[in-house]
């Protein structure tokens, strides 16, 4: 099937049993309720999708997205407020700019920009969310696992001095 030019990173994982890890940034009052609704409706999407809610998608820092890839997420999805944003009338444009900046930033660090995706998810957009997850999951499957950072000890840009101590107990190095 697919060429295995990532073997050095993906260890023994083949494409079939590669389950992409997706981090979703949702927003407290718009997209997070939409994602809740997907669950309430028992719509299924891969459990390797995890959600981190923030107040507004225009408050997202590109460096957080880079950090997620550096920490092993295969893709980051921004579930944007879109035109429903309760705070910012131009939220769609702002979040789009952040997504573009994040794609540039991750590319500078050797990650494929396609690992960063954005779509507006409204507070009742349960099905669109699930469809986005399935499509993104497939995209990431064809991209293959995220490669480890080439330069060791990379920290996020413009440094986070008080980044939390690594939790050694949970980090059983594979």
């Amino acid at each position, binding site marked *: 099937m697919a060429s295995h030019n990532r073997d050095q990173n993906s260890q023994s994982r083949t494409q079939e049993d590669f389950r992409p890890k997706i981090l979703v940034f949702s927003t407290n009052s718009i997209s997070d309720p939409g994602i809740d609704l997907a669950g309430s409706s028992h719509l299924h999407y891969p*459990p390797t999708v*995890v959600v981190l809610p923030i*107040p507004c998608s225009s*408050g997202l820092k590109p460096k*957080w997205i880079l950090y997620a890839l550096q920490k092993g997420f295969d893709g980051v999805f921004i579930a944007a407020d879109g035109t429903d944003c309760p705070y910012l*009338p131009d939220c769609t444009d702002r979040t789009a700019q952040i997504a573009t900046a994040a794609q540039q930033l991750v590319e500078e660090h050797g990650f494929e920009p396609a690992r960063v995706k954005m779509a507006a998810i409204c507070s009742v957009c349960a099905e669109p969310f699930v469809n986005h997850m399935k499509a993104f999951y497939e995209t990431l499957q064809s991209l293959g696992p995220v490669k480890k950072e080439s330069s060791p000890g990379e920290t996020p840009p413009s440094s986070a001095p008080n980044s*939390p101590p690594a939790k050694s107990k*949970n980090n059983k190095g594979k």
Partner: protein
Amino acid sequence: MSHNNHFPTTNNVSGSPSGRRIGVYICYCGGNISDYVDVEKVREAIASTEGVVVAKTTMFACSDAAQQEIIEDIQEYQLDGLVVASCSPKLHLFTFRGAAERAGLNPYQYVQVNLREQDSWAHTDDPQGATEKAIKLVAAGIAKAKLTRPLKPYRLETVKRTLIIGAGIAGLRAALALADLGIEVIIVEKESQAGGWVNKFASLYPHKKNGQQLISSLLYELYQRENITLYTGAQVVEKKGCVGDFEIKIKTSQETVTHNVGAIIVATGFENYQPHQGEFGYGQTSAVITLPEFKTLVESSREKGTLEFNGRPIQSLAYIYCVGSRQPAAEENAHTYCSRFCCNAAVHTALLVTEINSSIHQFHLYRDIRTYGKFETLYEDACRQGSVFIRFAENEPPQVIPENGQLKIKVKDLLTAGEELELATDLIVLVTGMVPRENSELVNLLKLPIGKDGFFNEIHPKLRPVETVIDGVFIAGTAQGPKNSAESTASSLAAAAKAAALLIKGYVELEPLIAFVDVERCQWCGLCAEACPYEAITKGSLGEREIAEINRALCKGCGGCVPVCPQDALHLEGYTDEQVQAMIEALATESS
């Protein structure tokens, strides 16, 4: 149902390098979570996390007994952080913040983890995957809780005075309600006369008073009260400040005055839909008129006892419903909503016509008819009194053809299996709906949120129906969407109650989860101030240096300023780099 089933507990009390003492409670939700997530396994996986002092599972975390146990644990183990992994924070964030507060723990050191809507219910097909995900989600919650600090809501004194914009039936009724609660009211009306649309309305159902009588009785009451000031021919031209103490400039033809008000009620009403040239013959022949125009005619004819148009008695007329309402979304600036009042208004008007002259033939051409609630009897009366109702299909609307001084209508009647009818009438009444009023100056001034339909938007249609995202600004009446006058008044009294609740208390407490400035990094470039539509960021100073300053009362906590700072000097409380990165790390970590 048992509410107090809690499961084996482990208390790993140990000295922790982070110095934090976190309690973690993982909820079965009576099976809603535990049927798909191995809750005990989750507890085992996170119990030994650094900083976790108590880790328990519970059948219903939200039950009184479980909350009591959490409170006792907070006190016994001197917890400085709390994580409850249960349902969506939309349901119980405030429940457990409250429990934390009752135990003496700062409520902002509580973190809710969503194991139900975003885990067990979404992955009923994959219990193992759901359990692995739950472990990550709880670990991320713990990571966040460890980086919380105690925060205090910002307390602000309020001015006991309300501004009401719009002196229609909604604005006037709200003014009386507030005045009677001892709150001073300033009303600003753009027109030269108070009363709005209702003042022009004909006889109203069911009491048969006309609009003018209703408005006069409200104005009479208004003039009895000393604590209401009404400005007519006036506009709000400037707004400063925030909830509890807005500074408002009002411009009248003679003067500009300034008032400080604690709350604002926007009751600016609606506009009638204006049919475009040629819409059902409108503008092409004078015998096609809108319902408001026809109602004026009916009202003036009631005394005369005869219904005439252009000097000729009307013998037959047709109403075409849903004009300007329920338009296909594909049309430009479509009004896709139902205007809700118009079916009732048209049927009621038909009854008034019958009162004048019962021999006038009246045809009602409709797509769907909704004479809800008490108005249903109006529809029955109209049927009984000879009104003929003809239903047409959405994709086959009636055609209006002017012919020999009379109007011909072609319509396919759905209820007689699509038979094509031709009606010749003297007059056609287009039953037009309500559309949002053009108010861009006010919208810009107050930063009012506008919904997809173009009307002002509430925070939540059921739970917070008259509040807007702008603290202290409420909406009332048809400014929010189509309503009849009874519904307008009900919503305006709701807005008055919310404004009064805010002002009688004497102070407001604002969320502390807002932006803050890293004063060491900030070099004041002003980009953050430009990014904030709430004008919450201004130039301040630190000694000699210029730095950004956040107005705690104006900041909404959206974080829109955070990514624009080239120095990375802005942060959002509750979503700092440290917290977000710690959560990302926990979410990325595979449990073994």
